[in-house]
């Protein structure tokens, strides 16, 4: 799915971390580790073209991403620190809009997505009036509807309670079983039991 | 406790106010209607035409009472706003909110009748004279109060925020009243005086006073009506509202 050789991100024209190699086949999970400020968030954003990166080679499903920067954008679903929810709109409206703008399956039933994520009953609540964890769940509901092969998730477990983490684990398991791949960042002990490769970002020098 | 204070305390309790409003509302409504009819008849049929302005002066019987009410209601509103801010009494918040649209209506009537009166007398619908401008500002203050209150998700927070604005805007009311004295304006100076002699003939004065009383009564009627339904809406989960609904049905 995603192969990279000697990949690193640039900040002020300097490498942020020692170059890493990535080999993420379909159906696999990759965990990005590293201390605070190691460059995990930056790496995910850089893959999507939101930051400069350098690499000997970088391929996504056979396409050379270094040449066609746009290739990853239509094949990857990214959830960052910011959740891209409009506080004034309800969970349902936010989800509908997110699915449409990402060109995901239109037929998805929003009530079902919410039930999956454990926020049933909040479909018509403005996201402004949700707790931190509920808001995270609303953002994660996109995953359940997504058919994109690669998921890039930045700290997907932050703010979630135990059952919430289990939901994310289930979503990941289904996705991997369908032949998708995922790359996620997390701190400390991973609260899930899925098999995963770990890549650690270390100081550049 | 002093009986007057006790009565106020009782009135502040939602169920008591609801019953009070239900009982007295019709009386205020009916007497307002009656007085309006009498005032209109005296003003528009009985009173003699003005030697200068002809019949256009009759707009006065709507314009002047409405103008007085626009300022009076602002005062009542600001007073309730202050009570709501200081003692956080729910009923004052609702009374405060109910005043704004009624006051805005009277202000709009003042402006519109004034404009139609201005065309024959001054030759223009609108001039930027101090009284006219400050009355327009009053309209915007009412709009500001309504807009700010509705911009908050929480009714009580909205009411208190709007109350701060209403209190700040109180300075405008004396400006409206004294504008004719402070600046030389096109607008009519003070004609009707409570103390001393009014510079208006009594055949013209009486209908005006009747209309002034009618608008006051109408205001109380509209205020009770609006506050009553807002109260029932806000407390809809409570036992006494359900009882009152059953009673009404």
């Amino acid at each position: 799915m995603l192969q990279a050789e000697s990949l690193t991100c640039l900040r002020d024209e300097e490498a942020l971390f020692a170059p890493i190699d990535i080999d993420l086949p379909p159906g696999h999970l990759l965990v990005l580790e590293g201390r605070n400020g190691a460059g995990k968030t930056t790496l995910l954003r850089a893959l999507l073209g939101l930051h400069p990166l350098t690499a000997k080679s970088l391929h996504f499903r056979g396409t050379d991403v270094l040449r066609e920067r746009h290739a990853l954008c239509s094949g990857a679903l990214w959830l960052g620190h910011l959740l891209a929810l409009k506080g004034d709109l309800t969970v349902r409206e936010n989800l509908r809009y997110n699915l449409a703008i990402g060109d995901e399956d239109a037929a998805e039933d929003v009530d079902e997505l919410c039930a999956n994520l454990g926020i049933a009953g909040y479909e018509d609540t403005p996201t402004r009036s949700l707790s931190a964890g509920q808001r995270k769940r609303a953002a994660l509901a996109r995953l359940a509807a997504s058919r994109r092969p690669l998921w890039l998730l930045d700290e997907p477990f932050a703010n979630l309670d135990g059952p919430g983490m289990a939901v994310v684990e289930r979503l990941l398991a289904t996705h991997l079983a369908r032949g998708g791949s995922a790359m996620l960042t997390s701190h400390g002990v991973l609260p899930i039991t899925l098999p995963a490769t770990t890549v650690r970002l270390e100081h550049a020098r | 406790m002093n009986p007057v204070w006790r009565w106020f305390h009782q009135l502040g309790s939602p169920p008591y106010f609801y019953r009070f409003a239900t009982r007295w509302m019709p009386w205020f409504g009916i007497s307002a209607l009656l007085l309006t009819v009498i005032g209109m008849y005296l003003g528009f049929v009985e009173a003699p035409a003005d030697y200068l302005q002809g019949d256009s002066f009759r707009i006065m019987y709507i314009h002047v009472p409405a103008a007085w009410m626009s300022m009076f209601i602002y005062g009542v509103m600001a007073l309730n706003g202050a009570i709501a801010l200081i003692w956080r009494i729910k009923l004052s918040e609702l009374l405060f909110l109910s005043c704004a649209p009624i006051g805005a209506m009277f202000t709009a009537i003042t402006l519109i009748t004034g404009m139609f009166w201005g065309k024959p007398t001054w030759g223009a619908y609108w001039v930027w004279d101090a009284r006219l401008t400050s009355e327009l500002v009053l309209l915007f203050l009412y709009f500001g109060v309504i807009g700010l209150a509705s911009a908050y998700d929480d009714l009580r927070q909205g009411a208190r925020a709007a109350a701060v604005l209403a209190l700040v805007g109180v300075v405008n009311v004396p400006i409206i009243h004294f504008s004719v004295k402070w600046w030389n304006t096109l607008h009519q100076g003070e004609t009707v005086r409570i103390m001393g002699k009014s510079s208006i003939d009594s055949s013209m004065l009486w209908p005006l006073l009747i209309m002034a009383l009618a608008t006051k009564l109408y205001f109380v009627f509209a205020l009770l009506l609006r506050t009553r339904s807002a109260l029932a809406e806000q407390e809809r989960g409570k036992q006494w509202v359900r009882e009152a609904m059953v009673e009404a049905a």
Partner: protein
Amino acid sequence: MTALRPYQALLARDLRLAFRRRADLLLPLGFAVLVVLLFGIALGGTPERLAPVSAPVIWVTVLLAGFLSLDGLFRPDVDDGTLDQWLAGPTSIVGLMYAKALAHWLLYGVGLTLSTPLLAMLLNLPVDLLPVMLAALAIGTLGATQIGIIAAALTARLRRSGILLALIVMPLYLPLLIFGSGAVDAVRLGESPKGALLLLAAQTVLLLTLAPPAAAAALRIGSDNPP
């Protein structure tokens, strides 16, 4: 028309966000009336003094009211991560910009144009100038929206850009203002407003073809994806 789905979704979302607070829809009108009021009182207020300046004052007021809405055009989308999602997603940014521009014009341009008769009355604008004023404003606000969308995109990632935004927008507004008041002036002097209106329309068409792609490019600045 599934190809249009993302753009429709954005248009619907922007309109919905605006309608969520219904009072907001009347507020541009309120602002315009207030600026007119400030000018009325500041200029002393007699009809003879007001009439000659009323058309320009209305133009400036409408442009200012539209201008005030620009800060909210992209800023919320930047702050909550929506913009990053657009840039990281498959949808054409140029298309999204057209949807944004349309929503903005529907919400502000149309509303302000429709409120002109009221402003005109407050400022004693001669009634026979009203039709040309309305036509010029309808075209002009569409152009102004395009200018606004470029400026808002350029300043979207900056903090406290309010006044920088003004600095970018105002000079670009000038040609619209010149031909816009020109058309009204022409009618007052008994000439045909056609020339001025045509030039105004030409500018607007030019802006319509240039502005959304320019705005898309501006949003890409700071991200690594080529436009």
